[in-house]
């Protein structure tokens, strides 16, 4: 046994030498003891040289990296291809809903399918797949797909596809440039994905003015200014393809500007306020009146009768009143296509107070937003909405229109909400939202919704929510109950203030 061990040891020493020998002594004859020793010496010298070179390299690297000095050697990780994969997150969302009314239109406003309420009974809300990662030392990118079931088909919406500069990009401190499609800065909720909302549905002003959210194609520059108070200003240029715009012709038809202030009040509460402007042109913006148009027409038909009773004298003031007589004025706004200037102005505030400093234990947040939309242009109704198509619509001028309505006026809406986390896993909240339709729609009343919710959060990643809404649209009342789950798996971006 001992002999064998010695043989192994010798072999271990000799084998590398023998293997190396042909390379080192390729030109020499058969190895003798003398040549072998010389070769080993040469090898030794060669290795010593290499080691010295490596040491010099290490020393040079150390000298070059003063910033990294003191850093412990990082633990060795296997850096396979996967380590460069983007962070992937999935949001799963499902609900059970029940409504006392079948129709869900907002009189005086168009309702795009992003802001339609989900169908009765069991349904999937928006599921999301999000990927993001650093592109290099200067850029970061992200892609979010929204998957929704609509009329029995799965629809994929490209919610976000953006690149943005990283702080090391060479732009001045505090400056960020973002381009592509993104949830742009407007108000409080717009920037956040719907799964981060405190209620199962977006409040009325978001549904009416932004069809849920403004995620147009474009670019936005934002600057956080130095100073103890949080001050952020920004501006953007957009295609104008998303509500409140649409049908962009030049591809750069909208722009935005905003300013925000924020700070702390004492040790455990914080606030932020902002003002926002979104201005641009719409060309044949058509967001309502597709497959469910049948239902809406019936709903609008009722209003028509009421309108004619209530607003007859007003109608006479309009010069163009004659052609419009057959249609509810509200229908222009809910089913018509708008072409003209549209400007949305918004203000928002948010206040958060965590009594112990730990928002995880208990927290009160107050939040509100006010939007005002000014439009100047024309609403056009398609032929199918004309009960008595006028003769000139037969002319082959390429437009299926039978009536237009000149509009120059405002609509506005706001909501305010309070959410209280009374136990680490339980939150409750109330929300009041109100919409004032354009005067010309002659709806005759404001629309309001009162909501209350209770949700249970098992971890940061899983939440179950029960919500009750009461819509009061004039005399019509709709009671709604929604039971919802929102769960996310995989990478999950940090939620802001």
């Amino acid at each position: 046994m001992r002999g064998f061990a010695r043989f192994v040891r010798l072999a271990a020493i000799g084998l590398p030498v023998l293997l190396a020998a042909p390379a080192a002594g390729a030109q020499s004859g058969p190895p003798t003891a003398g040549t072998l020793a010389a070769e080993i010496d040469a090898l030794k010298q060669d290795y010593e040289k290499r080691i010295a070179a490596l040491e010099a390299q290490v020393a040079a690297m150390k000298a070059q990296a003063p910033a990294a000095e003191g850093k412990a050697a990082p633990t060795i990780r296997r850096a396979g291809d996967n380590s460069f994969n983007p962070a992937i997150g999935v949001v799963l969302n499902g609900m059970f809903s029940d409504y006392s009314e079948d129709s869900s239109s907002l009189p005086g406003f168009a309702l795009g399918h992003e802001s339609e309420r989900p169908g009765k009974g069991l349904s999937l809300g928006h599921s999301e797949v999000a990927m993001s990662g650093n592109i290099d030392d200067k850029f970061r990118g992200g892609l979010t797909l929204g998957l929704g079931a609509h009329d029995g088909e799965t629809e994929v919406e490209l919610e976000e596809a953006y690149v943005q500069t990283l702080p090391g990009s060479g732009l001045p401190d505090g400056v960020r440039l973002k381009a592509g499609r993104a949830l742009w800065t407007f108000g409080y909720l717009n920037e956040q994905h719907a799964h981060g909302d405190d209620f199962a549905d977006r409040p009325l002003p978001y549904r009416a003015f932004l069809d849920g959210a403004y995620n147009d194609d474009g670019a936005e520059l934002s600057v956080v200014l130095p100073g103890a108070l949080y001050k952020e200003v920004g501006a953007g240029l957009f295609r104008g393809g998303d509500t409140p715009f649409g049908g962009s012709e030049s591809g750069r038809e909208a722009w935005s500007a905003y300013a925000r202030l924020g700070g702390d009040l004492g040790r455990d509460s914080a606030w932020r306020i902002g003002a926002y402007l979104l201005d641009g042109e719409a060309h044949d913006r058509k967001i309502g009146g597709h497959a469910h148009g049948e239902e809406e027409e019936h709903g609008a038909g009722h209003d028509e009768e009421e309108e004619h009773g209530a607003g007859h004298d007003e109608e006479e003031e309009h010069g163009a009143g004659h052609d419009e007589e057959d249609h509810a004025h509200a229908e222009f706004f809910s089913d018509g296509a708008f072409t003209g200037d549209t400007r949305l102005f918004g203000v928002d505030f948010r206040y958060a107070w965590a009594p112990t400093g730990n928002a995880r234990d208990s927290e009160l947040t107050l939040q509100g937003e006010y939007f005002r939309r000014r439009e100047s242009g024309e609403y056009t109704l398609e032929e199918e909405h004309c009960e008595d198509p006028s003769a000139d619509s037969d002319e082959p001028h390429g437009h299926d229109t039978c009536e237009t309505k000149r509009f120059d006026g405002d609509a506005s809406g706001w909501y305010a909400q309070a959410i209280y986390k009374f136990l680490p896993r339980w939150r409750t909240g109330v929300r009041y939202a109100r919409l004032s339709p354009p005067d010309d729609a002659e709806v005759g009343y404001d629309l309001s919704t009162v909501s209350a919710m209770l949700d249970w959060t098992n971890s940061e990643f899983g939440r179950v929510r029960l919500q009750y809404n009461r819509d009061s649209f004039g005399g019509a009342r709709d009671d709604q109950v929604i039971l919802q789950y929102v769960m996310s798996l995989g990478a999950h971006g940090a939620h802001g203030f």
Partner: protein
Amino acid sequence: MRMALAGALAAALLAPAAEAQVRVLACEPEWAALAAEIGGDDVIVHSATHGGQDAHHIRARPSLIAKARGADLLFCSGAGLEAGWLPLLLERGARRIVQPGQPGHIMAADHVEVLERPEAVDRSMGDIHPEGNPHVHLDPRNIAVLAEVLASRLAHIDPDRAAAYRQRLASFRARWAAAMEGWRKRAEALRGMKVAVHHKAWVYLVGWTGLERVAALERVSGVPPTASHLADVLEAVRGSGARAILRAPYDPEDASEWLSGRTGIPAVELPFTVGGRPEAGDLFSLFDSTLGLLEETRDRP
């Protein structure tokens, strides 16, 4: 137009650079305290969290973005502790000198040995850090290491006052070594004392003092203990000879008090960080009072 904007921005950016003091944003109070020791009057230190807060769960408040925007040095625990909010501060504040890899970016866990690195992670394990346990400050030897790192970074950022930082480091090092000698002796006397903990945040203290952890109230880290798990813990603690149930100021009291009521083992709230209790006003008193509370509990009949 664009040039004018860039010019105005450049002017706005150059102004604060002329300010005299180095602005340090610490994520936790212990690092703020260390920065104050080494930086003295040459730095303005702000802590993003206070002694009563759990640094896992902080909102990226507007005021913190403003602080990150103006910071010359960022000093945090790292190892994922601030993963829920720090990336947002860094991104929105967009201050280059405090970004990862820059001299103004110190993550304590990058400079010391990190314990409890899990072999595999899954969300079902709760709020777990793939990078290991980030609460490295509760071993005073780690504080000594970070003091050196901090002093060299401050000297790099503010070379004019490098001598002052070196001087304060020398002074701190001497005082810390002397204090550690005292703590080492006291810790020796605590060696083997059995404790139950609320959250697994105490691993560095337990390791350094030689305490023995017999149970953790949170089975899944970051998820409040469930009734059935508490029943298991009760069983485990009852016969274990545990002398204390440790919790941090930000841990909810109910679970540890319930366990204490059932077992008669005192529940002890340790300061955990500077400002966690009134008597823990700086790094020295943090360890003094922590050891004091443990000794007091041990000496109870």
